[in-house]
């Protein structure tokens, strides 16, 4: 480990400990580390955007074309118009001129929304809807998971029940607090109606889903913590070795 790596590792370790100091509550060390990280991230992002996007995509084509090439239709579409939109977007800085930047914002938001909605319909909504209508034919074998026979039918059945009961849970035809009338009363015990039972099952599926997501988040956090502890330990041993 050379000196530069040693110094970098030491600084990173100190920053990690400063962030972990949030365990004892909000403190200046934590705030300092957060401000530093946010500032560095923002500065790095700005530098990357200028170097990787603005200069090669906007500045260089116009400079290479020169004054004589400004009339080129392709350059107008790919260079001049985007440059004008960028300049209009800059006007958002001042409140008095902010309304001129709305043109660029409209273009960004409108195109972005159209792309996202279109992709969501064709890429998620329809495929997943069709995916939940799987056949219960036991002879079919899933090409990726290899499920077949009873196992696959059981899996498809769980998907079907989970989908339907979850949809039942989110039905809003019953007013809040009213609920469904009990199906029957046996020995003073209310037997709930079918809708209530289905909603309860759907609630269970949702709870299991959130539980799995929470467990995954905990697992991911523990891996990150292990990586940080390993990094600090490596830095400490490296410093000790370099001193020794």
């Amino acid at each position, binding site marked *: 480990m050379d000196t530069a790596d040693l110094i970098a590792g030491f600084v990173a370790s100190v920053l990690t400990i400063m962030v972990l100091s949030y*365990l*004892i*509550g909000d403190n200046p060390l934590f705030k300092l580390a957060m401000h530093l990280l946010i500032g560095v*991230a923002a500065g*790095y*992002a*700005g530098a*990357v*955007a200028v170097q*990787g*996007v603005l200069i*090669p*995509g906007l500045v260089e084509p116009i400079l290479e074309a020169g004054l004589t090439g400004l009339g080129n239709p392709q350059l107008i579409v790919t260079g001049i118009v985007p440059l004008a939109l960028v300049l209009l977007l800059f006007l958002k800085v001042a409140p008095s001129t902010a309304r001129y930047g709305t043109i660029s914002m409209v273009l960004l938001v409108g*195109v*972005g929304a159209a*792309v*996202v909605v279109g*992709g*969501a319909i*064709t*890429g*998620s909504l329809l*495929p*997943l809807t*069709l*995916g*939940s209508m*799987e*056949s219960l034919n036991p002879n*079919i074998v*899933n*090409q*990726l*998971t*290899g*499920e077949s026979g009873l196992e696959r039918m059981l899996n498809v059945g769980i998907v079907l029940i989970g989908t339907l009961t979850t949809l039942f849970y989110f039905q809003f035809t019953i007013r809040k607090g009213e609920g469904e009338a009990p199906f029957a009363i046996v020995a003073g015990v209310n037997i709930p109606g079918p809708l209530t039972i289905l909603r309860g099952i759907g609630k269970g599926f949702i709870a299991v*889903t959130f539980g*799995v*997501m*929470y*467990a*995954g*988040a*905990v*697992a*991911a956090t*523990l*891996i*990150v*913590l*292990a*990586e*940080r*502890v*390993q990094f600090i*330990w490596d830095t400490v041993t490296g410093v000790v070795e370099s001193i020794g």
Partner: protein
Amino acid sequence: MCGKPNPGEAEECEHCGARLKPLEVGGSSEDSEKWLDRMREDVGEAPTSSEMGGEAVNEPDDTSSEGPDDLDFDKLRAEQTEEKLPQEAEPAKEDVPEWLQRIREKKAEEPKDLVESNEPAPEQALRAAAPPADEVGSETAGPAPEEELRPGSEAEPEPESPDWLEEAEDKGALAEEEKDAEPEAALPHVPALIAGAEKPPEAELGDLGLPDWLGEIEPLEDEEPEGSAPDLARATLPNWLEAMRPVDTFRSVVEIASEDDQAVESVGPLAGLSGVLLAEPIVAMPRTSSVGSMQLDVSERQYDQAELLQRLVEEEEQEAPAKPKRRARLAIYRWAIAAVILLAVSLPIVTGEPSFALPSLEPRELGALFNLVEQLPAERPVLVVFEYEPGNAGELEAVSGALLDQMMARGLLLASLSTRPTGPALAKRAMDPYAERHGYQDGLGIVHLGYLSGGPTAVQLFAASPRDAVLKGFALPEQVRESGLTAWDTVVLERVQALSDFGMVAVITADSESARVWTEQARPYMGDTPLVVVLSAGAEPLIRPYFESDDPKISGILSGLPAAAAYELRNGRLGLAQARWDAFGTGMLAAEIVLLAGIGYGLLNLWRGRSLA
């Protein structure tokens, strides 16, 4: 008035003719006669006292409200004493003026029940603040002029029961007989009429022989003592009359200031006189309009909302009490849990113990992914998309390491891309260790396309036309930059024109959103090119449906450290997943123990609470 000097004995200004000396009450009888004549002439149809033959003296006279400056009260009293008629005596119809006759007829036509009702008509309510009709009728018709002029006459009408009218009529004769014996009510002091003169004593004013209605004014202004009229029930002020009352800012009663405090009028025909009634309270001061003063039809809901608004305003005005500073409590539980987990994670790293066996079982989808990578054509590059922030690098570098290791072990060409500004640096950081292990060089086996700005729109643009979306590249070799080439000109990407030219697209992401965006936007342009996602453990449940459907949009999925450790076992090489396996295992064990302890503590509290209940 004009300000020019005049002799001391002059009574009128020689220049402008204005009176210099104030008139005194009890002037010459000639002056009073002239004034009365003038007023009678002005009234026209109103019969004079002489014309009525002594009976008309009791008839109302509007001119009495004029407040003549040369009023001779002694003479008037003498005339009233001589010509006074019994109260019950009605003047002859042919002598009564027509306007008075109409008033009397109207009064006679008024229904009795209206008088007895709790909501008298406006005329009755106004009359309630005035002297009794029969008494007033002997001197003047309608309400007293002073009462009309006084702003507070409307604001504070003495609520009189309608019975008052009847009782007053019954007592009229008796009151008339006792009138001479009783002292006259004090005349309101009007300094403008006797400027410079001292306020006369009450006894002298009582001897002025004031009209009866004028004598009744003073008691009306005073607060009537309780029990003074036990037979009279207080009338309820009707709503329409309540709405006509002046607002609070309006001075309901004009208090006549002392003589010294009264300002001298400076303009107008009354200039030079002090104690002049101010016109501002009547003209300029705001008060409730009498026009359209209908009772508002307020519903219950509107009333509640008004009350709520009023409560809000009142709460705003109240000074919020300073909250007592909460006593700082030590986060014992938080510290204890953090210490346990930190210790559990650190122990295997520092001491190497305890150690856990690597997973013997692997996820079913891992085999499919492994085989997929094994079968990728070597001539087609693999696009690896790094869609995570630096905070997730610790997990995703460990999980994706096995996949990168396998691809580099196979000698596949790799290209990296990211839609996040920090992504290119993270891509280089994640790939460099394996590149070094397998002898990859930038520009030859690996090329970084860099940052793709624009989010989902840019992903679609890249999928449709990769070379138009990314122009240069990131961290290109020096010889490539010097020669003016881009990443697309390198050996890795020179044959790529579309997204389908890649051998595989692998998206490494910590959130389900990025995986969904690539699935939705890029998948339609990929053709047969498989799409693989490497996920954080928390995002896997939301992406798995894309993988497990009969028509999968995702060809391979890798998530979680156990799957990565199993992948490394398949590769046969030690990786980051195995290096962190022990720390991860003890950390998960500690977390599970903490969760179980928390559940037990909660159940214990629940049981204790029920026991106490």
